[in-house]
C-alpha cells in the first residue's frame, strides 16, 4: 500500500518535471579522468552552440556501472535518451529491444563515411548501424625507442619474430622486462585474432546466429598464447603481475618495460610520462611472418538511442549526435584523449588544419590505418552472448597457464567448454528474440 503510494507520487513528480522542460534530454557516459573532461567540454559546447535543446551529461563512473544503471533505469522507465555503451555489451543491446538503431532515426546521414572497423562492430549482419561510434580506440604497438636503441636495436620491430629478436638483445643488455602484456582478452586475444584473420567463434563470431560455438582453441591464437608462456619462461615477456608497477601501462610508462600493446586511448598518458626521458614510437601491432594483415577491432564505446521518449527529446538527441559527428568535434576528442576519429573526412580535416604533424594527432592516422586494413567476415567484430562473462573466464584460465598449473592448450580448451555453456544459455534466454 505505502509503496504504491510512494511510486505514484514519484511518477507524478517526474511527469511534472519532464513536461516542464521538453527540450531537455540526458546523456549517460561511463568514462572518467581526461576523457570525462573532454566529454563534458563537448556537452557545454553543444549547449552553447544553440538554444533549442539542452543536454545534461551524467557520468556514471565506469562502463559497467553505466550499463547496470541503464538496465535498472530502463526497467523502471527512468532511462536517458542517449547512452554510451562499451564494445562487449553490443549483443545485449542489439537484442534488448530497448534501443532504436541510429540509422533508422537519422536516415539521411552518410553512414558509409565511417571507417570500416568502427562501423562493422556496431552494425547488423545486414549492414544497418545500430549505434553511433563515439570514443573509438584500437590496439597499437608502443615501443620505448630509447631503450631499444641502447640495446642495439635500431629498426623498430614489425613482426613477432622481430619483437623476440629485439627482446633477446634487450635481455642480453641487462634489461629486465623487454615486452609486457596485461594478459587481458581484448589486447592479447581478440585483437590478435582479428588482425591475423582468425575466427573466435563459428557463425562468423556470432554475426550469423546465436548458435555459434567457440573455435579459438583450434586456431593459431592458441600457438601464440603458448609462445607468450614460453617467452615468459625465457625472461623476454612479463605479465602485469610480474612487474614492479603491478600494472602494465604503468610499467611501460615508467620505463620498466620496453614494449607493449595497448589501446590508442592511453597514448596521451604514455607521451606525457616519456616527455624528456624516452622517445616513444607508436606503430601498427605486430604480425607473425607469413600472415596477411587484417583490420583490428574497434574498442571504446558508442552511443545508443533508447526507446520510450517523446519526439522533442529525440530531436534534441539527434542534434547532439550530429554535433558530435562534426570533424572539429572528433578532432577535439582525438587531441584531448588519444581516441581515434571514426569518420574518414576527419583525416583530411587534420591534414588541412596545419597541425597534422602534431603529437596530439599521432594516433589518428595509425589507428585508422589499423582499423581500415582489409577485413573478412570474421574480423567484423564479436557478437557472442554473455561475452563479458566469457572475458573473465578466458582471463581466469589463461592466468592458470601463465602460473604453470596447466598448459595453455588445456586452459583454452577449458575456456572454450565454459564459453560454449554460456553461449547455449544465452541462446535459450533469447530463444524468442531475433538477431538483427
Amino acid at each position, binding site marked *: 500500500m*505505502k*509503496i504504491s503510494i510512494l511510486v505514484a507520487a514519484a511518477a507524478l513528480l517526474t511527469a511534472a518535471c519532464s513536461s516542464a522542460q521538453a527540450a531537455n534530454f540526458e546523456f549517460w557516459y561511463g568514462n572518467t579522468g581526461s576523457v570525462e573532461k573532454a566529454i563534458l567540454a563537448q556537452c557545454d559546447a553543444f549547449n552553447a552552440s544553440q538554444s533549442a535543446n539542452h543536454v545534461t551529461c551524467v557520468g556514471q563512473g565506469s562502463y*559497467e556501472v553505466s*550499463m*547496470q544503471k541503464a*538496465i535498472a533505469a*530502463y*526497467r523502471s522507465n527512468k532511462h536517458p535518451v542517449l547512452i554510451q555503451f562499451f564494445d562487449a*555489451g553490443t549483443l*545485449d543491446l542489439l*537484442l*534488448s*529491444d*530497448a534501443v532504436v538503431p541510429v540509422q533508422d532515426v537519422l536516415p539521411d546521414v552518410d553512414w558509409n563515411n565511417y571507417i570500416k572497423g568502427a562501423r562493422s562492430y556496431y552494425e547488423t549482419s545486414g549492414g544497418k548501424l545500430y549505434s553511433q561510434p563515439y570514443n573509438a580506440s584500437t590496439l597499437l604497438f608502443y615501443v620505448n625507442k630509447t631503450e631499444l636503441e641502447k640495446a642495439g636495436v635500431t629498426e623498430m620491430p614489425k613482426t613477432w619474430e622481430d619483437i623476440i629478436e629485439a627482446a633477446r638483445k634487450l635481455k642480453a643488455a641487462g634489461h629486465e622486462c623487454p615486452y609486457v602484456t596485461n594478459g587481458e582478452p581484448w589486447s592479447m586475444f581478440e585483437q590478435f585474432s582479428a588482425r591475423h584473420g582468425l575466427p573466435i567463434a563459428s557463425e562468423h563470431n556470432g554475426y550469423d546466429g546465436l548458435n555459434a560455438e567457440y573455435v579459438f582453441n583450434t586456431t593459431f591464437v592458441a600457438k601464440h598464447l603458448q609462445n607468450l608462456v614460453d617467452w615468459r619462461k625465457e625472461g623476454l615477456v612479463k605479465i*602485469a*603481475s*610480474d612487474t*614492479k608497477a*603491478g600494472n602494465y601501462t604503468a610499467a611501460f610508462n615508467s620505463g620498466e618495460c620496453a614494449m607493449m600493446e595497448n589501446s590508442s586511448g592511453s597514448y596521451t598518458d604514455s607521451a606525457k610520462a616519456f616527455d624528456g626521458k624516452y622517445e616513444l614510437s607508436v606503430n601498427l601491432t605486430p604480425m607473425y611472418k607469413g600472415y596477411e594483415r587484417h583490420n583490428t577491432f574497434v574498442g571504446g564505446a558508442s552511443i545508443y538511442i533508447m526507446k520510450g521518449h517523446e519526439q522533442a527529446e529525440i530531436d534534441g538527441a539527434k542534434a547532439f549526435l550530429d554535433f558530435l559527428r562534426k570533424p572539429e568535434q572528433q578532432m577535439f576528442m582525438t587531441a584531448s584523449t588519444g581516441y581515434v576519429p571514426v569518420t574518414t573526412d576527419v583525416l583530411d580535416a587534420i591534414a588541412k588544419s596545419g597541425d597534422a604533424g602534431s603529437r596530439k594527432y599521432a594516433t589518428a592516422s595509425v589507428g585508422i590505418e589499423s582499423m581500415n586494413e582489409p577485413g573478412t567476415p570474421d574480423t567484423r567484430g564479436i557478437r557472442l552472448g*554473455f561475452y*563479458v*562473462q566469457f572475458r*573473465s573466464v578466458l*582471463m*581466469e*584460465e589463461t*592466468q*592458470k597457464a*601463465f*602460473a604453470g*598449473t596447466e598448459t595453455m592448450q588445456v586452459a583454452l580448451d577449458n575456456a572454450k567448454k*565454459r564459453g560454449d*555453456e*554460456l553461449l547455449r*544459455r544465452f541462446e*535459450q*534466454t*533469447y*530463444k*524468442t*528474440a531475433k538477431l538483427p
Partner: protein
Amino acid sequence: MSSESSLFSHRWLPLLLAAPMLLLILIFFYAPIIQAFYWSFFLERPFGGGSEFVGWDNFRRVLADPEFWNAGWRTVIFMVVASSLAVALPLILAVAADRKIRLSLTARNVLVWPKGVAGASIGVVFAFVFNPFVGILAPINHVFPGAWAPGLDGTDAFITLIIAHVWGGIPFNFVILLAGLQSIPRTMFQAAAMDGAGPWRRIFDVQLPLIMPQLFLTLVLEFTESVTSAFALIDTITKGGPGGSTNLLVYKIYTDGFSGYDLSGASTQTAILMVFVAFLTAAQFLLLGRSVNYER
C-alpha cells in the same frame, strides 16, 4: 520476560514504533530476496521482456557446474579458517587485556580502531602491505625470488585475503569477548586461585566456560558474515584472481549478475547461498547453542 511486555500498554504502539525499521527491512532486504528467488526460476533478460519460466533448470545447471562448486568450496574454506582465526585471535588479545597487566587499558583502546575502517579501504591497504615488490614480504623475494607472489600464486592471494579479513574482524570480537570476560565476578577468580588453580587453569576452567555466550555470538556472526563481507576485500585486492583462486561465491554472484548481466544465474546462486547460510546458522544454534549456558 512477561513483565517487560506490559511496559507498552497500547497494543499497536510498539508495532508503530518499529514500523519504519520494518519497512526498510522489507524494501531493502525481503523484496530483493523474493525477487532473487523468483528470478531463479526464470531465464531473465537484462532489459526485461520475454522472460521464460524454466522450473528447476537453473538450479540443476548451477549445481552441475564445477565452477560453482569450486567457488563454494573456497567459500567454505575461507569461512572456517578466517572466522576461526577472527575469533581465536581476539580471544587471546581479550584474555591478555583483561588481566591487570601494563598497557592493557591502552591496548583496549587501540584494538578497537580498525572497526572504523571500511572493508574496501582495508583491501587497498593490504594490497600494498603484501605487494611482492614493496610490501613487508619483499625481503623474502630478494632471497628467494618468486617465493611470495600473490599476483600469480593462488594460495598466496588466499592467505592475503584471510589476513585482511581477520585483521578487520578483531575489534568487534575483541570488544564483545572482553565485555564477557569483565563481567565475570572477581570472586570466582579469587576462589579458584585460593584452591590452587594457576593462570592457565583459570582461563580454561573459569573464564572460557563463563564467556560461552559471547564466544557463541561472535562465532555465529563471524561464520555468517565471512560469507558476504569478503566481497570488499576480494574486489580491491585480487578481483577473484589469479586464475579464479579467490573467486568466492559472493564475488562470483556479483560478477555474473552485474558484469555479465546473467540475472538468472546470479539469482540462482544467491538463493542457494541464502539457504546454505540459513542452514548453517540453524545448525550452529541447534548443535552448539544447546551447550551454551546463559545463566550465571
